[in-house]
């Protein structure tokens, strides 16, 4: 049993260390695991994700969008699909139907001849939004509702080309990873010690049988 316990501790320690190394390497000191930049373009005025493209809830995500070349005023927002569909009704745009990791997107062109129904920054239903000239950064936690991400050029120029960098942000995960490495190594060393150290009888319970033998 002692041998088994030692082996189990070593296994747990190694597992913890591997997990910690994986977290630290994947996220890095900035606590971000990302992909990009990737170029996206549309002949319309906006690039929008479909609800199916954001099929997960929970993690905090950071989206960095830059317009290459001239610095165009950009608006980034994430909102419920019902709001986004109505807001962009009639606006020519490109819809991202699916995103595969590391990076492959399936898109659909949505025709239209109009403009968004209002100033995007004036609406109160954005879960998160950001604006910037030339680039903008949006950070939000993926909601458990049907949400769309909107990339919109606030000038009325035709077409939109952007470079997109997306990252999952987990504050503190790099430190947690290092801590798991240290902890795992410690547990593994302890397990090694348990495995290799011989048990020696101690205390009254160990002494009494010997005394009985002597008496006999």
């Amino acid at each position, binding site marked *: 049993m002692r041998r088994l316990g030692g082996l189990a501790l070593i296994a747990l320690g190694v597992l913890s260390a591997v997990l910690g190394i994986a977290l630290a390497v994947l996220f890095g000191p900035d606590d971000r695991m990302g992909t990009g930049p990737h170029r996206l373009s549309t002949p319309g005025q906006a690039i929008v994700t479909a*609800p199916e493209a954001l099929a997960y809830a929970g993690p905090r995500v950071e989206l960095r969008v830059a317009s290459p070349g001239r610095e165009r005023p950009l608006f980034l927002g994430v909102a419920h699909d019902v709001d986004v569909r109505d807001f962009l009704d009639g606006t020519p745009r490109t819809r991202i139907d699916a995103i595969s990791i590391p990076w492959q997107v399936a898109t659909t062109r949505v025709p239209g001849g109009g403009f968004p129904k209002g100033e995007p920054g004036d609406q109160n239903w954005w879960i998160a939004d950001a604006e910037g000239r030339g680039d903008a950064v949006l950070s939000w936690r993926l909601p458990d509702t049907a949400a769309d991400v909107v990339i919109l050029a606030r000038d009325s120029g035709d077409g939109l080309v952007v470079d997109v960098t997306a990252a*999952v942000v987990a504050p503190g995960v790099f430190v947690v990873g290092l801590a798991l490495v240290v902890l795992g190594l410690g*547990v593994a060393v302890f397990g090694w010690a348990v495995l290799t150290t011989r048990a020696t009888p101690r205390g009254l319970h160990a002494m009494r049988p010997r005394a009985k033998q002597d008496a006999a």
Partner: protein
Amino acid sequence: MRTAHAGMRLMAGLLCVAVLGSACGVPQRKDTSVVSKPAASPASARSVVATYNAVRARADERLDASLLPQIEGGDLLDIDQGAYFVSVRVDKPEGYATVRLAAPEQVVAPRFEAYPLWFVVLARDEKGGNKRVAVFERADSVSPWLMTMAPETTPQAGLPPVVQDSNGAAVTVAPEDATGTGVSPTAAVQRYAGALAEGQSADDAFFASDAFITQTRKFQQTQASLPFATFEQTWTPQTPRFAVRVEGGGMLVFGTVNRRDAYSVQTNSYIDWDDNADTAAYLPGRVYRSATLDYTHQLLLFLPPRGEGRPRLIGQYGGVVDGQGS
């Protein structure tokens, strides 16, 4: 052996802490087939009511009807602008009941896959004392929430429990759906208009008696006895747009009926309505030939399950919206 067990427990505990610490960030697959959203949460409904109160207070203070379109729409806007018009014309601003809603006691919010959105709140009117069952509508994503219906009910009134779907949203009823009640929302409002109309009809006994029908009957009798004029009152129902299912199989139906009071004056006679605020505002001076006054009334009807009693009026709010005379 004991130390080995203790070590394992420590390791397991630490792993649990690490996992729980980052649990909120663990990706969870969600159901993307559901693309509807509830019209409002209790918090957003409170915010909408607060916005209404803020603008309404400014409008009430100055009797400025031009502010009302920011917070009201549809027939309710016509009614309240008419009330302001009357108050200003007869120079009795203190006679007009101002409105300030308390925090909603109940929020009834269906889910929608597209605009327009609407939800219902039951809230006490801190100025008037009664409760209002108000419908707020949002036509599209860039329009403000507008109160479009607000039947008034008693201070003790409550709404029957509303059926909720698996997401906790109220279940709506289509205008022609008579399931469970034997009468659809459209038919119920039509029959209520029939019960309000002059003369006898089968609709009179269809509803439980209420103060609105009683007052309307009394008014019809009073006007019919005018010595030098003939009086005719007509009621026209609108197709109801808001109805929700309540537990047990009944429905709550918001309906609107338009009323026209028409007077035809005999030769060499006249009508003088000096003592009536509505008519004094819309028909100042004497009317020698004919006059019409248009009213709009908003109703909240409860339709019980078939065989469990008669439909009844829960709330009503209305007023004069136009008048012409010569």
